[in-house]
């Protein structure tokens, strides 16, 4: 710690930007001691969140979620599959999280980002275990046909809290999803009823539509997440990339709309999570879940 004295001397003469690059931890700790962060936020406050629905015309449901600068685009496409014999009444959701090279200077083309498969797995586990989607609603003809939903989430701008933004965009895409109306034709294949003029309606009008009108999934127990950083005795909610690179202990809490905990994730890091820290994180997550619930509620009404 002999460096401390020299940095004290240098800091009085250095420009703010240079100090931020050379002594990032000291820069942040100066702000934390005033209960502020460099972008002016309070410690427990998340960045401005925006959600937009229905942007991708080629998908059956889509959403764009922005938390601060972190931007995620989620799109769902529905295809028909044969359900497995163990669960003939259930459909399936295949989720994949992509980090294309545009999103961050650390991602190289041809080499998937380190964080991508981790977030992919965490997202599918979270969505499955929260019980948000009832797979039985994806059934078309029991034992013969069911929906397979391909959910692809693309990170367009990576600025910290990737899991939170990705989960929000996935949930919003499901709320935007319109399942196409289909019928079973004579060959046993499911075909879409578009009501278009060029169709051969003869085979279709005889069978009634398997799902009556364009349907939406009922979402219960929607999960909302908040990622926090633990550093000494500070807890910072919704970190940016800069904060994540300096302070390495990240905790993610996922709660659902009835305040039940869906998941708690802490993987390593130099700070230990004592029960008081955990309680504070859960409390912050609870407030955040209310905010996000309100934002999504406003979306649905539109």
């Amino acid at each position, binding site marked *: 710690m002999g460096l401390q004295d020299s940095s004290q001397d240098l800091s009085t003469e250095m420009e703010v930007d240079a100090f931020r690059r050379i002594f990032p931890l000291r820069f942040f700790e100066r702000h934390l001691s005033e209960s502020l962060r460099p972008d002016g936020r309070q410690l427990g406050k998340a960045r401005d969140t925006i959600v937009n629905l229905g942007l*991708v*015309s*080629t*998908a059956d449901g*889509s959403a764009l979620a922005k938390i601060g*600068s972190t*931007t995620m*685009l989620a*799109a769902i*496409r*529905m*295809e*028909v*599959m*044969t359900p*497995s014999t163990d669960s003939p009444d*259930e*459909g*399936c*959701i*295949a*989720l*994949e999280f*992509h980090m*294309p*090279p*545009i*999103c*961050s*200077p650390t991602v*190289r*083309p*041809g080499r998937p980002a380190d964080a991508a498969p981790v977030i992919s797995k965490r997202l*599918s586990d979270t*969505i*499955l275990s929260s019980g948000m989607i009832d*797979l039985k609603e994806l059934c078309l003809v029991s034992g013969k046909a069911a929906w*397979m939903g*391909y959910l*692809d989430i*693309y990170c*367009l*701008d*990576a*600025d910290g809290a990737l899991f939170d933004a990705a989960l929000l965009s996935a949930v919003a895409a499901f709320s935007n999803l319109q399942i*196409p109306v*289909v019928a079973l034709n004579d060959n046993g*294949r*499911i*075909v*879409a009823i*578009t009501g*278009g003029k*060029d*169709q051969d309606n003869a085979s279709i009008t005889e069978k009634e539509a398997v799902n009556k009108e364009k349907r939406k999934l009922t979402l219960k127990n929607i999960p909302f997440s908040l990622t926090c950083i633990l550093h000494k005795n500070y807890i910072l909610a919704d970190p940016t*990339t800069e904060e994540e690179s300096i302070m390495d202990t990240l905790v993610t809490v996922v709660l659902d709309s009835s305040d039940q905990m869906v998941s708690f994730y802490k993987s390593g890091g130099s700070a230990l999570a004592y029960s008081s820290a955990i309680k504070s994180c859960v409390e912050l997550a609870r407030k955040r879940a209310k905010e996000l619930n309100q934002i999504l509620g406003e979306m649905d009404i539109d």
Partner: protein
Amino acid sequence: MAAKPGAATPTYSPKLVGSSRLPIFKDSDLDWSRPDGRGFHQCRPALLQTGAVSSASGSAYAEFGNTKVIVSVFGPRESKKAMVFSDVGRLNCNVSYTTFASPTIGQGTDHKEYSSMLHKALEGVIMMETFPKTTVDVFALVLESGGSDLSVVISCASLALADAGIMMYDLITAVSVVCACYNSCIHSSALSFKVISIGEEC
């Protein structure tokens, strides 16, 4: 998800294959018009915006009708690949598509050649000698493909490079052109009717 182990289950899209593609040309019709009502030499209305991606040195977003593209520029930064000293900079380009970019289900065509075509377009206009020993990375992601993808990517890339402050001789733009010839054998004088349409996907 929903834990089905083993190989991926085959799925199919319920949408009718090759359904609603109206033929653009009708045999004896000399006055055909483009499906969206544009004139033959008319481009689609465009939206161009810089600063789309905050993590990049420079970025741009372009929308030409249904074709939506984001381009990020990183650099000049250290080249991981370069082994020898070079007194000119290097340019690295990559164009990728989202899985939902094409209206047909599945990957569509991957367009792997677009990366090298973008490189060829940009290498003439960037002043490489202004960033020796380093690399400028230009990455493009096509969010939705509505035709003329490469030309939109090139125009958007030059805007992103300008946003990043990379020195160039000029801003470059690109446009796709389709040339269709119509020959009538019915009339005594052979009628050769050249139609040029811009930015159309056939």
